């Protein structure tokens, strides 16, 4: 977990744990409106597959407008 004072982050990460993911979350964008999921490749594949939208709904409920997966450095 990334250390943060934003209460949405632990809530979003709890939603991810409930769905079986270990990924971390950070808030992005000029208004911190995007939840960016920092996931390793196997979890990125799952998130971009059929189960991704339901997971995104759960993460968005933590208080974000958009939910995304980060494309990290190689």
């Amino acid at each position, binding site marked *: 977990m990334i250390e943060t004072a934003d209460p949405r982050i632990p809530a979003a990460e709890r939603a991810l744990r409930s769905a079986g993911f270990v990924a971390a979350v950070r808030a*992005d*964008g000029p208004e911190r409106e995007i939840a960016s999921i920092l996931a390793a490749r196997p979890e990125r594949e799952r998130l971009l597959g059929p189960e991704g939208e339901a997971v995104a709904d759960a993460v968005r409920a933590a208080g974000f407008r958009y939910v*995304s997966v980060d494309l990290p450095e*190689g």
Partner: protein
Amino acid sequence: MPSLIPSAERRARLRAVLRECDSVVVGYSGGVDSVFLAKLCLDELGSDRVLAVTGRSASIASWSKQSAREVAGRFNIPWLEVDTEELSDPRYAANPSNRCYFCKTELWDRLRAVARERGLRTVLDGSNADDVGDHRPGAVAAREHGVRSPLLETGITKREIRGWSREMGLPTWDQPASPCLASRLPYGVAVTPRRLREVEAAEEALREMGFREVRVRHHDPVARIELPAAERSLLLDREASVREAVRAAGFSRVVVDLHGYRRGALNEGLASPELVQLGGVPSGVAGSN
């Protein structure tokens, strides 16, 4: 299941509306609707009574301009480009939720001037029956400028336009929607030439990789990519290339939206008083920002 093409009666009604317009300037972006309308006007009114006009500015993507030019040339549609200066209007550049009103005001001002100069009686746009219910502040500007919407007036749907376009041999029949580049900036994020260039460069690179219905939303300095589900496997195959191409366009971070591509995504957070819809335009909304 809705029909792929309009009935003979509805086609005849549309042709009658075009004849009633007598001679026309068509607002012509090079997209599905305006190409279809311009070609139908040409067939119905003849080349000396039709002029398709494309607004040229930094908010219009290069691929839209190219499509407009190519299709006009191929089908002998009389065509003109005019510069529009919406980016110089601070009300537009501030990017309020009725941004399109200021852009379309500029466009229809220019097109009406062209129509006057050329002695063409009516200015037309390609709004259609499926645009009813969308957030359309630009429709207020069209109404204020006396612009007619024959496809909307005769209830022609997008699906019918695509079907009829295919029958007419128009290459745009299956072209994805391509709204202006400013639509990639969340409301309130200023529309600047730099941001528009970054979006255009990123989307151009992704299109070259084979993505078809892609949007790069600009959350300075983050790029949020929206893709339909069918294009996500390509993303996973080309992950590193996608990231590098989008970063090279000027973004420092690249993320992919998990809800995917959806039309009008940036309107999702608007409160109902901010929404301006065809068929239900509240008075006084247009100039309120």
